[in-house]
């Protein structure tokens, strides 16, 4: 019996209808190591963690703790085995203090009265031991994201967890906070805790992890030592070479500028830093420009700024020659902008409305669909919906009267695309348009985007999928920590190079002429680093 492993997941297979989320995956976490779990969006990392926490039961495979097989039926079982997790979105009570949050659920009481002093001593001792600076009496809503995260870590330590899982912990942190976290993780490992570090940032893996296991499309690719593996090799493992889907398209013939973004800055809702920092770019008619990047690097906020959901802190947006910086969402939508939103359930559809009402969501107010007296023209709406359904092969149980909620994700997305493409527009903003779709549906979406381009529209595609980024657009702009760090030609670049830009290890764009010195020196550092590596 090998007891060198703190926790082992052996040959785990978890299926969902139509998809194998985890296909024969083995993950072995040694005691006292930092083990990274690397994979793209949708690679199956979250499912695997859900299996470990008993949220899902695997169809095949076993989980072993210290070499002994264990059954984990729910998160409480996982807690009993000493497994703790810092979620990407913290699970803290905003109006409680740090101390109250830490002891929540495991309070020491005496005759029903809380014994806070004991808890406070233990928390202070733990925070000193691991260098986790917190103010036990500060309320969560008043402290920084970094301190909130340390509170989450203390929560795990307070419960004497031995196996600590960090789910993309750096996504919401500032660079300084990330450095602190890296030190904390090393301290924890040195004290004998075993850490599983879920991420897709290669730099961070290089910095702290001992070994890395890679998942791709639900499959287990392998486990390698970080010290002897280059970032290029890791990104190759993550992306794979055999999965590239070719998309047939003619070379683009870009024409006039349709969308011009100058020095756009958008505030973040998650942290005090700006999510989009001084971004400038242009999209011309007849071309597809892709904003590539790892999730959470400001793409969502960039689109919110473009669509008018969020006001700009600074900058200017020009659409078809008109300054739309301060105009309403409706104005932008009726003056040339179509928008396939990132979250089709949140923004794209009124799920409880029938399909026909969703088909006119951006046009219901037009004379075609509303009479002068303000009555909806139900017959015209019905016919229009039927026309779009036929043209775009949108399938539903009952046609126009199907409640949108009852449709499959692929058909919901087709309906949104049909609506946005059919509407009069010069610019199509498509945000993760293939998210959650199967291969056939993805192909259809890509064909739509290219048809749009060939019809002389400007297309701005925001994508997290590397294959899509490599195959669909004519130009790639890479976004990292709210800035555009690289412009690449998809025909000339490689996935590996793209990966380096996305992970922030490389950049070829700087912020205009007024770039601060610090940023310049950063660029130099990165360049030097790259040379050293070569």
């Amino acid at each position, binding site marked *: 019996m090998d007891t060198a492993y703190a926790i082992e997941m052996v040959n785990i297979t978890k299926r*969902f*209808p*139509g*998809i194998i*989320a985890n296909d024969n995956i083995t993950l072995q976490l040694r005691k006292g190591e930092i083990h990274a779990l690397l*994979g*793209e*969006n*949708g*690679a*199956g*990392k*979250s*499912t695997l963690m859900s299996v470990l926490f008993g949220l*899902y039961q695997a169809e095949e495979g076993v989980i072993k703790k210290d070499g002994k097989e264990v059954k984990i039926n729910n998160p409480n079982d996982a807690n009993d085995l000493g497994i703790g997790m810092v979620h990407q979105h913290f699970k803290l009570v905003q109006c409680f203090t740090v101390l109250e949050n830490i002891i929540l659920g495991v309070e020491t009481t005496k005759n029903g009265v809380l014994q806070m002093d004991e808890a406070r001593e233990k928390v202070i001792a733990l925070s000193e031991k691991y260098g986790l600076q917190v103010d036990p009496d500060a309320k969560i809503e008043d402290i920084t994201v970094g301190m909130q995260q340390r509170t989450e870590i203390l929560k795990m330590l307070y419960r004497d967890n031995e196996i600590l899982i960090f789910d993309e912990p750096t996504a919401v942190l500032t660079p300084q906070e990330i450095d602190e976290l890296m030190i904390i993780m090393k301290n924890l490992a040195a004290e004998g805790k075993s850490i599983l570090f879920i991420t897709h940032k290669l730099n961070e893996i290089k910095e702290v992890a001992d070994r890395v296991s890679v998942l791709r499309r639900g499959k287990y690719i392998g486990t390698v030592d970080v010290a002897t593996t280059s970032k290029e090799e890791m990104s190759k493992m993550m992306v794979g070479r055999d999965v590239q889907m070719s998309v047939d398209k003619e070379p683009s013939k870009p024409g006039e500028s349709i969308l011009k973004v100058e020095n756009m800055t958008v505030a973040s809702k998650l942290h005090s830093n700006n999510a989009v920092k001084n971004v400038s770019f242009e999209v011309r008619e007849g071309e597809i420009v892709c904003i590539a990047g790892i*999730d959470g690097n400001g793409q969502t906020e960039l689109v919110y700024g473009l*669509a008018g*959901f969020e006001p700009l802190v600074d900058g200017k947006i020009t659409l078809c020659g008109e300054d739309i910086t301060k105009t*309403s*969402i*409706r*104005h932008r*939508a*009726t003056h040339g902008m179509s*928008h396939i*939103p990132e979250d089709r359930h*949140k*923004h*794209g*559809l*009124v*799920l*409880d*409305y029938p399909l026909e*009402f969703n088909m006119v*969501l*951006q046009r*219901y*107010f037009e004379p075609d669909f*509303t009479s002068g007296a*303000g*009555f*909806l023209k*139900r017959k015209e709406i019905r016919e229009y919906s039927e026309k779009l359904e036929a043209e775009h092969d949108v399938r539903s149980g009952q046609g126009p009267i199907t409640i949108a909620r009852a449709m499959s*994700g692929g058909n919901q997305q087709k309906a949104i695309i049909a609506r946005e493409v059919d509407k009069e527009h010069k610019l199509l903003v498509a945000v993760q348009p293939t*998210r*959650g779709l199967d291969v056939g549906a993805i192909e259809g979406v890509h064909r739509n985007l290219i048809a749009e381009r060939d019809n002389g529209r400007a297309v701005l595609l925001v994508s997290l999928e590397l294959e899509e980024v490599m195959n669909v657009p004519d130009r790639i702009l890479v976004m990292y920590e709210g800035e555009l760090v690289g412009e690449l030609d998809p025909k000339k670049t490689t996935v590996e190079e793209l990966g380096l830009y996305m992970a922030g290890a490389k950049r070829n764009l700087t912020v205009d002429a007024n770039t601060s010195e610090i940023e310049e020196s950063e660029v130099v550092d990165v360049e030097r680093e790259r040379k050293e590596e070569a």
Partner: protein
Amino acid sequence: MNEKAEKKSFLKNPSVQAIMTSLICIILGLLIGYIVLLLINPAGAGEAIKTVLINFLSRSSQAAKVKALGNTLAKTAPLLMCALSICFCYKVGLFNIGAAGQYEAGACFGLYAALAWQLPWPVCLLIAGIAGGVIGAISGVLKAYRNVNEVISGIMLNWIMLYMSNTLLAKVKDPASPYTLKLSAANPKALIPNAGLNAMFANNKTVTLAIPLAILFAILIWVILSKTKFGYELKATGYNKDAAMYAGMKEKQNIIVTLAIGGALAGIGAAFLFLTGYQEWSTTQTSVPGMGFNGIAATFLGGLHPIGTIFSSFFIQSITDGGALIDKSVYPSQISDLISSLIIYLCGFVLFFKFVINNWIDKSTKKKEISKVTGEAIEGGDK
């Protein structure tokens, strides 16, 4: 198998479901009421529950029956307006518990306009509507711009308006009683006309144009919600305010307008009662009138449909009046309120029963669907 599926799809039909769940609520309410009556005094229970249920039909003469029906109808009109107010706001995702306060505002300013300013009834009606609308809009502005829950601000305004009404209407009260002056004496112009309707109800003077007007309002609200661009926007905002924002609708404005319209409906509802001369406002009352709250029950019992609320409002008013006819020599006088409130309370469970029915229908297919949904969540779960 096929037959079964057909039966299931019949039960899945939303209108069938709405009517069925409402009936279940009524039956359960009556059953529990009956049990309570049995516990207090088994002898008269059957008779009492029958009285509650048949209300005006329990009267002896034909004329008395018709007259009692007229009274019930006269009080149905304001209840229907309150129910419409709540129903309308509910469709936009707002719970207008402040209908009671908006109703008070309508009563207060409608009566004041009639008694102090001697205005004719259409103007008083309009003033009552505006007053209710303003109170509704206050909740709306607080909700839209300060994110104050409309339930909280609504309840507070209910009490504010109660005492404001008492204070203001004390200026136009009968010196010998706590009640406001009788309209028939003080300003007959302010009485809503009978338009010959009273003749059909044994010359019951409280049967006025208010009743057909309230029904017209119900139809109007139904048309607005289901046929117009305005209704399309409001419902979209209620179902999914993020999608409404994405589609360029003015979410904040929609919230304020909705509560203002809801308030106006409740305000006019109050005028529909107090401008018929059915009763006067007691300036010493210390509890919020139940009309606004009964409107909540009528809304749910009516299947959240404006047309449905016409029938549910009549039913609720009918059992309330019927409760008052229970033999007081057998049961304590509070029993009428207890029975009718029990039934009204059970009416609030409409959505719960709908859930139970759907659960039962979905039992076989549910497992499949859940795994589908979670499967989808996994695909996009790594964000």
